[in-house]
C-alpha cells in the first residue's frame, strides 16, 4: 500500500516537473525577440542565441576576431578572397554533420532580401563591401570573394547584431521556407519557448568544443555544464532582485546600485566587468546654441566625471571619455586622458561665446538598462552650477530614438551598442549629417582618418590614428563620452563560471552545485 502511494507521488512529480537535472534560471529584462538570429533581434537576443548557434568566426573576450566553426581561415594577398577550413566532426543538434554546403546554403539564405537579414546592406554593397561570390570547393572548405579589400570584413562576419552569421541546419526552416526554430551547433539546444515568459535551452551532450584551454569570449573552450538553461523575461528590477534573494533566479544582470546589497547576501555573489557599450551625451552641432564649439567645450569641462561615474556605477565604473573602450588593446595613455574638469574655465568659455542663458534641453529616457536618466540628473546640477540653463526632457525610448534618427535634438543622453573594432566604434558616431542625420561627428578630417583606419588591422598603423581621433574629438565635442558600461552579474553562490562582460548570457562553462 505504502509503496503504491509513493509511486503515485513519484508519478505526480514526473507530471509536475517535466525537466530533470540541473536547471540554471537566468533573468532577462525582456523576452528574446525571436529565435531567428540576425533577422529579428535585439541586444539580448543576439547574446542569448549564441548559446544555440555559432558562426564561422567570432570574438574573443578582447574583441578580436577568431575562428569558431572554422578551424582556420586565410585571406588572399589582394585582400579579396577568404578561405575558411571547417572544423571536423561538428554536428548540428539534429545530428546532421556540418559541411561547407551548409555554409553555402546559409549564405544563400542571408543574401536573399526575402530573409530580411539585419546586415544585408553591409554585405551586398549598399553600405560598402559587397560579397561577390562564394562556394564550397570541398566538404570542409568555404571560399568567399568580396569586391574590395576590407580590413573589417571578418569583424562584420562576427558581429553579434548580424547574428554572427550563424550557420544553421536546413531543418530550421519549415517545408514552406518559413522560420521554425534554430537548429545550430552551439552548446545548447533550443527548447521550449513560452512567448513573453521564458525560453528553455537544453544541454547539447554531443557538443564539440573549439580548441582552447579556457573560455575566451564566444570562442575558446565551450561546454554545456548544466542540463537546462531557462531565460526568464522579468522586466521589473525589483522582482529580479526578489527572485535572486529567494533563490528562484540563479543568474541575472543587475544594476550597479544593487551590487552592494546583493554582495551582503552570503547566498549570492556578484561579478563585475566592463563592456564596449559607451554611455554618452550627444550634442547637436547644428543647433544655434551648440553650434559654438566653446559652448560645447564648456558643457564638457563643467562635468566632474569621476563623481558622475562613481554615482551612477556605485563606484564600480571608470571614467572613459574616449570612443575606445577601456578593455581594448588600443586603449592607451592618450585615450586615458579625457576632459579636464574645470568649471572656472567653462564659465570663461561661456562668456566668450556670449552665452546668455539660452535653454539647453537634454533628452533622456528611463530604461532600466541604461544610465541615461541618472547621468542626466547629475550632470544637470553641474551644468547649472556654471550657469548653463539645462532642462531635462524625459522621453520614452522610441521617441528619443526617432529624434536621434532625424537629428532633432539639442542634447541626448544615450548609450552606443558595442563595437569590438575600434575603427567601427568611431565610424558608429561619425558621418555626413546631410546623408545620415543620426551621425553626430561630421568633421571631414576625422572621416578621412576613420576611412584610413578601416583599411588595415595593423596596430602600428592604427594606434596613431586612434590617438589623433581621440584628441580631435575632445576638442570638437560633438559627443561627451563618460564611461563604458559596467556589467554586473549577480548569481547564486552555487553557480560558478559566470562572466560579466558582453558575453554574459553565454551560459556554457557555467556550473551549478546542488
Amino acid at each position, binding site marked *: 500500500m505504502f509503496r503504491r502511494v509513493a509511486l503515485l507521488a513519484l508519478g505526480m512529480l514526473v507530471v509536475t516537473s517535466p525537466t530533470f537535472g540541473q536547471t540554471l534560471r537566468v533573468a532577462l529584462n525582456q523576452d528574446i525577440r525571436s529565435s531567428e538570429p540576425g533577422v529579428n533581434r535585439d541586444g539580448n537576443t543576439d547574446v542569448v542565441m549564441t548559446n544555440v548557434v555559432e558562426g564561422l568566426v567570432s570574438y574573443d573576450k578582447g574583441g578580436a576576431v577568431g575562428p569558431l566553426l572554422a578551424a582556420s581561415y586565410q585571406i588572399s594577398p589582394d585582400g579579396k578572397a577568404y578561405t575558411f577550413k571547417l572544423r571536423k566532426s561538428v554536428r548540428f543538434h539534429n545530428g546532421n554533420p556540418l559541411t561547407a554546403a551548409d555554409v553555402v546554403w546559409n549564405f544563400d539564405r542571408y543574401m536573399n532580401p526575402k530573409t530580411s537579414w539585419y546586415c544585408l546592406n553591409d554585405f551586398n554593397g549598399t553600405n560598402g563591401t559587397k560579397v561577390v561570390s562564394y562556394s564550397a570547393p570541398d566538404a570542409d572548405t568555404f571560399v568567399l570573394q568580396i569586391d574590395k579589400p576590407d580590413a573589417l570584413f571578418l569583424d562584420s562576419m562576427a558581429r553579434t547584431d548580424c547574428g554572427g552569421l550563424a550557420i544553421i541546419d536546413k531543418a530550421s526552416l519549415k517545408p514552406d521556407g518559413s522560420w521554425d526554430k534554430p537548429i545550430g551547433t552551439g552548446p545548447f539546444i533550443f527548447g521550449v519557448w513560452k512567448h513573453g515568459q521564458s525560453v528553455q535551452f537544453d544541454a547539447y551532450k554531443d557538443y564539440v568544443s573549439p580548441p582552447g584551454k579556457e573560455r575566451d569570449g564566444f570562442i575558446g573552450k565551450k561546454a554545456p555544464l548544466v542540463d537546462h538553461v531557462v531565460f526568464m523575461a522579468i522586466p521589473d528590477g525589483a522582482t529580479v532582485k526578489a527572485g535572486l534573494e529567494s533563490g528562484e533566479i540563479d543568474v541575472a544582470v543587475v544594476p550597479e546600485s544593487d551590487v552592494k546589497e546583493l554582495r551582503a547576501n552570503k547566498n549570492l555573489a556578484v561579478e563585475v566587468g566592463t563592456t564596449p557599450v559607451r554611455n554618452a551625451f550627444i550634442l547637436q552641432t547644428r543647433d544655434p546654441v551648440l553650434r559654438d564649439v566653446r559652448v560645447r567645450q564648456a558643457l564638457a569641462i563643467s562635468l566632474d566625471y569621476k563623481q558622475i561615474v562613481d554615482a551612477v556605477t556605485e563606484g564600480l565604473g571608470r571614467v572613459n571619455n574616449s570612443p575606445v573602450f577601456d578593455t581594448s588593446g588600443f586603449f592607451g595613455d592618450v585615450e586615458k586622458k579625457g576632459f579636464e574638469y574645470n568649471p572656472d574655465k567653462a564659465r570663461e568659455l561661456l562668456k566668450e561665446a556670449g552665452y546668455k542663458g539660452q535653454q539647453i534641453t537634454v533628452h533622456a529616457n528611463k530604461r532600466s538598462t541604461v544610465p541615461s536618466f*541618472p547621468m542626466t540628473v547629475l550632470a544637470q546640477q553641474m551644468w547649472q552650477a556654471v550657469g548653463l540653463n539645462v532642462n531635462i*526632457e524625459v522621453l520614452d525610448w522610441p521617441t528619443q530614438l526617432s529624434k536621434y534618427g532625424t537629428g532633432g535634438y539639442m542634447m541626448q543622453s544615450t548609450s552606443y551598442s558595442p563595437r569590438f573594432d575600434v575603427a567601427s566604434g568611431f565610424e558608429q558616431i561619425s558621418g555626413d549629417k546631410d546623408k545620415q542625420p543620426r551621425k553626430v561627428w561630421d568633421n571631414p578630417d576625422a572621416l578621412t582618418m576613420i576611412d584610413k583606419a578601416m583599411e588595415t588591422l595593423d596596430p602600428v598603423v592604427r594606434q596613431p590614428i586612434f590617438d589623433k581621433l581621440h584628441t580631435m574629438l575632445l576638442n570638437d565635442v560633438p559627443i561627451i563620452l563618460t564611461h563604458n558600461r559596467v556589467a554586473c552579474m549577480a548569481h547564486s553562490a552555487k553557480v560558478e563560471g559566470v562572466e560579466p562582460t558582453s558575453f554574459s548570457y553565454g551560459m556554457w562553462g557555467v556550473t551549478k552545485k546542488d
Partner: protein
Amino acid sequence: MRNFVAANAAIGSFIIGVLFIVAGIGAIWTPYDPLGISFRDKLVPPSPGHWLGTDEFGRDVVSRLMAGAATSVWISVTTVVIAVTIGILIGVTSGYSRGWFDRIVMSLNDALLAFPGILLALGLLAVLGANKYGIIVALGIAYAPSVARVVRGTVLSIREREFIAASRVVGNSEAYTMMRHVLPNCLAPLTVLTTSMFGWVLLAESSLSFLGLGVPPPAPTWGNMLASARPYIGQAVWLAVLPGLCISITLLGINLLGDALRDRLDPRMRDRT
C-alpha cells in the same frame, strides 16, 4: 451613525484641507530643494536631518513629497476643471437637444469610454510634449466622457421636472431655460462626481507615472516617486511606502468627503418624491 457620518465628513475635510495646505506650501517653500541632489546623502533613512530620509539621488523625501503634493493637486484640479467643463458642454447640449445629435455625440462618447486612458494619454503626451500639460489634457479628455454621461443623465431627468415645463410656459427660450434652470440643477450631482473624480485623476496620474507614462521626472509627483522607488524597495523601504501612503490617505480623504457630500446632497435630489 449620525456621529459616524459627521466624523467621516470631518476626517475627510481635514485630510483634504491638510493636503491643500501642504500642496500650497510645497508650491512655494520646501525644507530642501526637491530637485537638489547630494551624493553624500544617498538613501539616508529617516533621521533628524531628513525626517523621512532621502532618495537615490540624496534628495530630501519630505521636500519631494510636498512638491509632489503641489504637482499632483495642481494636475488633479486642473484636469477635473477641464473634464468637467468639456463634460458639461457635451452633456447639457446633447441631453437637452436629444435626437440625432445626442445619438452621435453619445456613441462618440461611448467609444472614448471604451478607450484605455493609458493609450490616450501616451498618444496625447507624445503629440503635446512630455510634460504635465500633456497629462492634464490627456486625462481631461479621458474623463470628460464620464462627466458628459452623468450630466446628460441629470439633464434628461431634470427636463422631465415640471419647473422646466413651467419655464417654457412662461415663454422663456430653450437656451435661457437650459442656462437658468437646467444647468444649475445639474450641479449637485456634479459636485459629488467632481469630488470622486479628483480621486480618480490622482490615481490615474499615479498609475500612469508608475507605468512610466506620467509626469516625467525629475519633477516629483507621488506616482513617479513610487515608480522610481521600486528598485530600492529592499534597501530603502520608506521610499516606496511613503508616496503610496500619501496617495492612499488622500484617496481616503476624498472618498470620505465624497460620501459626506452625497449624504448631504442626496435628500435634496430626492425631494421630488
